[in-house]
Each structure stands twice: as C-alpha cells, then as structure tokens.
C-alpha cells in the first residue's frame, strides 16, 4: 500500500484528530496531577467511569453537555478519593491508583448492569454531531480536519492551550509546579501543599473522565464494558514522552493516534503476510519505545511519588 498517499488523505487526518481526542484529555489530566507531584494510576478506571456515567446521563434523558459535566464530576470525585489516600494520608501512589482503577472499572460495569439488566445489543444515544463552523470549516484541508470535528475535540485543543497557559504563565501554575518540585519550599512560601495537590488531582481526574465521556458521547453512541481498552495507560506513557510539557503532550497524542489510524488502514487494505495482531501491538510497543527514549533525559517533577507530611523530614 502506498503510505505517502495516505498522508494526503483528509480522512486519515480526520481520523487521527478524532482518535487523539480522548488521549489529549487523559494526558492533560495526568500531566496536571504529575506536575503537582501525584502519579494517578487511577486513570484507566476514571476514564471508564466517565465513559459510563456520561452515557448513562444521556441515556436517562439528560443533555449531552450535562453528560460531559456529570462525567467530570464523577471523575473529580474519584480524584478526591485518590487525593485523600495519597496526598493526605501519604499512601503508596502506585497501589492506591490501581485500586482506583479497579474501583472505577468494576463500579462502571456494575452500575451499567443495574441501569440495563440483560441486554445483548446496547441501546444507542444520539451523540455529539460534527460542528460545521461557517467560515473556518471551508478552509482547504485544515477546515475539515480541525473544524468539522465534534465540539469535544475542539474543547480538547482549547484545553491544551489553557493548561499550558495556566501552568506556565500564572501564579497558580507556579504554585502547582512548586508543590511538585519542592513542597517544603512551597510550604515556606505559605502555600498549602495538601490543598494544591488535592485540587490538581481532582481537576486532572475530571479531565480524564471527560476523555472517557468522549468515547461514548462523540466517538461511539453506546457503552461497552471494557471500551477504554488501555487508553489510560497509554496516556501515562504519553506524559513521560512529553517530558511533562502540555505542547509536547498534544504532539505525542496526535502522533500516537496517527499510528493507530495507520494501523487500522493497513489492516483493512492489505491481506498482508503480517497478522493483524501485530499491528495492534504497535501502539503498546511504541509507548514502551517512547518511554525508553524519553526517560533517560526526562526531567521528572522532583517530588513525584514522594508523600508530603507536615513536620516530617
């Protein structure tokens, strides 16, 4: 197959941007948590919870934006739980995060079965329609790729800009980065380390949940158990890949989604000698490769994984 012609296809780029959207939300969320010094391995479960709660909200008669908001609240609540365990009590961020993932995923499945007992084909909702912004969407190439997406995709791009601005250019962002780098110094400045970290984890988790909600409210129109399918873990790898910078994280998510899109095309078009399972492995192997290449020179937030307790050390 001709790979070059693929890159000239608008459909390919459209798919890439669409597939990047949940990754952008998730990666931004994780990035905010980690910049404040908290690793959030709950992401996979929080995304599942967002996926399910957003869909259920709409299925039970709510509006689409209401679903997004509800998903964000559910995400923030799970984030609060993670923060109480890791920030306030200083428990292992690894283990707590896995616990949150298990809780989020299993509760989603349980609640879904409560809402819809015994159905074989899940009912559908009317998802977000692609926007057609009057002037911008008629731009050549860029128009359809960027401005004929759903509103949530645009929101993801705006979110990256806002996150980068707040994190790098405002006093709040400085304070957040400070509690991630040197909490003792932050405390000496009169900042509340616990409050800042809790806030960061809650906001970050809300973003992750919105990323999950995108899957059911915009990308697909139904909920399937296990539909997050490892996207959360990929976001964690993407944060390392981006060396904790929002702009690079956006780039990483797009790159990654492009890989995914190529993989799907190749899978469809060629009855190749390589079994499709190996194409499906590519995203995971690329994540590992990205981790390896970026880890050696990565500038970890210094206080990542280190619990902060008043009066200790």
């Amino acid at each position, binding site marked *: 197959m001709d790979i070059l012609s693929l890159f000239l296809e608008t459909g390919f780029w459209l798919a890439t941007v669409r597939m990047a959207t949940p990754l952008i939300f998730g990666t931004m969320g994780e990035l905010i948590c980690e910049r404040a010094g908290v690793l959030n391995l709950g992401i996979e479960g929080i995304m599942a919870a967002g996926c399910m709660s957003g869909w259920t909200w709409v299925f039970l008669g709510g509006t689409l934006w209401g679903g997004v908001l509800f998903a964000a609240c559910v995400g923030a609540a799970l984030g609060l739980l993670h923060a109480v365990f890791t920030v306030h009590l200083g*428990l292992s961020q690894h*283990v707590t995060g896995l616990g*949150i993932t298990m809780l989020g995923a299993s509760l989603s499945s349980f609640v879904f079965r409560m809402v819809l007992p015994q159905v074989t084909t899940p009912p559908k909702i009317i998802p977000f329609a692609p926007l057609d912004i009057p002037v911008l969407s008629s731009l050549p190439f860029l128009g359809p790729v960027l401005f004929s997406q759903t509103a949530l995709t645009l929101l993801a791009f705006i979110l990256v800009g806002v996150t980068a601005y707040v994190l790098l250019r405002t006093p709040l962002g400085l304070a957040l980065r400070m509690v991630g780098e040197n909490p003792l110094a932050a405390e000496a400045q009169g900042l509340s380390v616990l409050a800042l970290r809790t806030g960061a984890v809650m906001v970050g988790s809300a973003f992750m949940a919105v990323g999950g909600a995108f899957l059911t409210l915009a990308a697909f129109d139904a909920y399937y158990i296990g539909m997050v399918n490892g996207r959360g873990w990929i976001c964690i790898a993407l944060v390392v890949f981006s060396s904790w910078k929002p702009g690079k994280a956006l780039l990483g998510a797009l790159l990654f989604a492009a890989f995914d899109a190529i993989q799907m095309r190749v899978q469809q078009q060629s009855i190749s000698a390589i*079994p499709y399972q*190996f194409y499906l*492995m590519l995203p995971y*192997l690329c*994540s*590992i490769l990205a981790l390896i290449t970026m880890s050696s020179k990565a500038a970890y937030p210094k206080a990542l994984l280190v619990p902060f307790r008043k009066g200790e050390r």
Partner: protein
Amino acid sequence: MRLEPRDSVALTWQIGAPLLAVIASMAICSGLILWAGASPLSAWGLLLKGALGSTFALTETLTRATPLIFTGLAAAVAFRAKLWNIGGEGQFYVGACMATWLGTGMVTLPAWLMIPFLFLSGALAGGLFLLIPTWLKTQLKADEVVTTLLLNFVVLLVVNWLVFGPWKDPMAMGWPQAAPVIDQAMLPVLVPKSSLHLGFILALACALAVWWMMRFTVWGFEIRAVGASLKASTFAGMPVGATIIRTALLSGGLAAMAGVSELCGVKGYLTLDLSPGFGYSGIVVAMLAALHPLGVVLSATFIAVIYIGADSMSRAINISNYIADVTTAVSLLTVLLAMFLTRYRIRWK
C-alpha cells in the same frame, strides 16, 4: 489534621486490621446490594454458602484460589523489593504458552517428570520475560509500572494470534483454542469428582518456600533491604543489581506458574480467557496480605470466596456478579487504610 507515627503496634492489631477492613468493605458494598433490591445479610450469607457451603463449593473455591496464590506471591515478592511488577497477567500467559508449546506433544515424559518439567520451563520463561522491563528500569530508567502493564497487552495479542493462527486446534470446531496438553501433563485431581488439582499443593509449597526464603536466607534479607532503602543497601555493599534480577526471576516465575497450573490443572488447553485477570487480582491478594507470603494464602482464599460465592449469589438474587469485582476493589482500598491506621494515628486539632 495531623498524622502521628505509632511507637509500637500490637500483633493482634496487625492481624485484626485487615479483617476489620474486609468487614468494612462488605458493609460498603451492602449499599449496592440494597440498591439492587436485595437484603445484604441474606446476600452475603448466600455468598458464603455458595463458596464454602458444600464439599463441591469448597473445592471450587480452593481451585480458584490456586492461581491467585501464585500471582499474589509474585506481586508480594516484587513489591517487597519495590519492583512494581504489574505484569502478572502477561507472565501468567507466558507460562501458559510455554506449557502449551512443550506439553502438546513436543516432549513426552512420564507424568512424574513431565509436570515438574513444565512448571520449571514455564517459570523460567516468565522470569526471563520480566527481566526485559526490569532491565529497562535499571539500565534505561523506563518506569516498570508502565512497561510491565503495556507488555500485558502485547502478550495477550500474541496469545490472540497463536490461538487464531499457528496453534489453532483443528479439532476444536472452529473455536479459537490451542490443542490440549497430553495426558501426562495434566495435573492429578486431589479430591475425587472435583476440580481441585495438584497445583493447589504446589501453590501452598511455594508460599512456604517463599516465606522461608524471605525470612531466613541472605537472598530474602537482601530483597527486603533493597526494598526498604536502595541507598542504604548500595552503601552497605549489597549486590543490588543481582538482587533485583533475582527478584524479577522469582516474581515472573511465580506468576508464570499460575499460568501452567491453570492450563494443566483446570482447562487443559490455551484460550484467550484462561485468566479472568488473575495477574491483576494477584496485586490485591498481595496487598491484602500486607506482602506476607503466608498471608497470601489466606487473602487468595478470601478473594476466591468472593468470586465463587458471588457467582451463586448473583444467580440466586439476580444481581450482577460484577459485585465481586467491586468488593475486591473496595477491599484493597479499605485494607490500605487499615494498614495505614496501624502505623499512624490521626490527631484532629
């Protein structure tokens, strides 16, 4: 709010805290049962009856506990050395693949040789497999939490390819499964007319061996020391690198033995659903046991009771059996909290 370390913790508290936590988690999950319109007391009663109420139920529970003991030990050993092996699921399938590769006719030995041979080669494969992310961690600083996790997906895709492709059993009526292992490779049944197999005894033996090793040998001491303080053990001149490699081989090997035991003890052939997440549950098992090898046996049994019991409970009162997953997840969090409270007291001011 202030946290104060406790000076000494009574042994009764150390054992009692996880028990209290488990009870607390059942109380929390009772809310979900109420929501589903059933009475929690009768639901938990049905669960216990379904898991322990008859010889059949009991053997089913112990059969389910067997792979969980292996994967729980795998997580406990690794976490003791602060090697965050989240890849138990992948290593489980590596072991199962090895047993399939060698056990479906490639090697023919009498049963008393065949079974140890399969366990050893499976364990070796699983251990070597965990060495990849371990090497990436020590040499290239790639976080092993993420790499071991991502490798789970890769292994599962390899298994997917194998059972749909080269290993697909032509006798399986089109089902994606590999050929069954030869009779000599099947683990003997312990209780007649039950599914409880030799793997359970082996799991108990492994728990004892790991406990003995961690408690009484230099290697065990080194594993604990590296986990407690990497800096101090480097300073004390311990072979830190070798210790981490040993831990990885042991942890990956134990998780892979779960795969061999499930394959040769329960199903007999490789499928994609050989493990309903035993690798991940192993992490919960290890945490519930506070990383104690003998405690792993108890906590694995507890998790098995929840899963086996939830099946019959969900059938009896028409509630989704995802309640078992929720209970497990909540238990993990409450036990974390309980273990924290044995070490610290909270002072409000």
